């Protein structure tokens, strides 16, 4: 029979600081941001930033373009990484598309007006 006090295993050891490992505590790192930008006239641009690595942005872009019937490109940004850029206001469509594909809704943040 083992005496708990003599155990070498320390139940508190492995836990550590739950936030210690992550670089930026309290940042919106793992959110998917969907933003909108105004262009000239009634035109707008939708950007999708912060897509998790396991999704292929290129394939997703292709699906978006087909689904929403709009054009779009993949932009490489120093800070934001790969950003999908679509023509027109596709924010809600993107959000529903992603949620239907199994991305949790609370990780998606829709910005803009």
């Amino acid at each position, binding site marked *: 029979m083992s005496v708990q006090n003599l155990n070498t295993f320390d139940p508190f050891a492995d836990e550590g600081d739950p936030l210690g490992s992550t670089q930026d505590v*309290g*940042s919106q790192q793992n959110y998917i941001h969907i933003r*909108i*930008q105004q262009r000239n006239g009634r035109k707008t*641009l939708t*950007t999708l930033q912060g897509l998790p690595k396991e999704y292929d942005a290129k394939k997703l872009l292709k699906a978006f373009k087909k689904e929403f019937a709009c054009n779009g490109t993949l*932009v490489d940004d120093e800070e934001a990484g790969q950003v999908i850029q679509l023509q027109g206001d596709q924010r809600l469509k993107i959000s529903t598309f992603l949620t239907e594909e199994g991305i949790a809704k609370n990780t998606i943040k829709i*910005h803009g007006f």
Partner: protein
Amino acid sequence: MAEEPMFDPSLKKRKKKTVAFSEDPLGAEADPTTPAPVVIDDTTTNGEAVDMGPKTMHEQMKQNGDAGAEDGAEERKEDDDFKAMFGDLKKKKKKKDIPMDLPEDNSGTSTPVTVPAATEDLDFSDLKKKKKSSKKKAALDMEAFEKELNEAKAKDADEEEGGVEGPAEVDEAELGDDPFARNEATVSMDAGNEPWLNSDRDYTYQELLHRFYVQLHASNPALLNSTVKRYTIAPPQMLREGNKKTIFANVSDICKRMHRQPEHVIQYMFAEMGTTGSVDGSGRLIIKGRFQQKQIEHVLRRYIVEYVTCKTCKSPDTLLSKENRIFFMSCESCGSRRSVATIKTGFQAQVGRRSKNKTG
């Protein structure tokens, strides 16, 4: 009135259930017309309208209490509050269906309490019809909750002005996505006639929770007075400057109202809307791009949710202070303190001409 005899027996047996149900379909219909009870109560006083005030107050308080227990519901409430904040903008939208729903609405507020038999019959015959039109139980429960909220709001609005503005917004609050069904939450049951006394089934969490609130409010009537105060902000005044710029005239007023630095608000707005701008000599904000009032309003609403209201107690009396590059929001009324997200602009796509200093 033909349904009334077959409806009655079940009514006597399980009073609570039927009442709960009858209120729900009501909520579905009476939702947009919440000003009705407030405006009409005085005019169509038929017996129960007199004691309706305190009862509904009680109900509403209970609702608030329940909402406190469940996050999602609370979120919704908060949403509503913010919608109500700008309520006066859309006053005219919903007025037309007030008159036809009046009787139902009236009954709806009185059903949870012990109703005189005569009115009960009337109401239920009405309600039965409504029941068919309503679809899902979960949705219904939400609706009932919404309705309670509206009542609360209508009450507040009544105190302030007109009593028309608050509820007009409610249908805008997104309804369907609430995961938990709030069954039996709106029913008031007196201590002693709990439904599980007659059967040997287990009591549900909802019932116990409800019982708790009933007893809490029975023993502490003072709690009833602490209803949510509505947090109002003047609607943003938008002007167009030329073709491509928008002037947000009353930024400073709104910032003062929210007790926030205009810089912070402006920074948030620019980050959210993906644009830039400046403040002119008279304190107005000039935003690049065309924006409508409701768009700005939407952004402001989100700002308030994120940076003004206390996440714990929903009170807008908060202070924002900066420590070590992190903003902290401390609540004046409950004393909670939490860090808030930093404002980040995120990716900005190249729009229009390329700037000259950027090559490529």
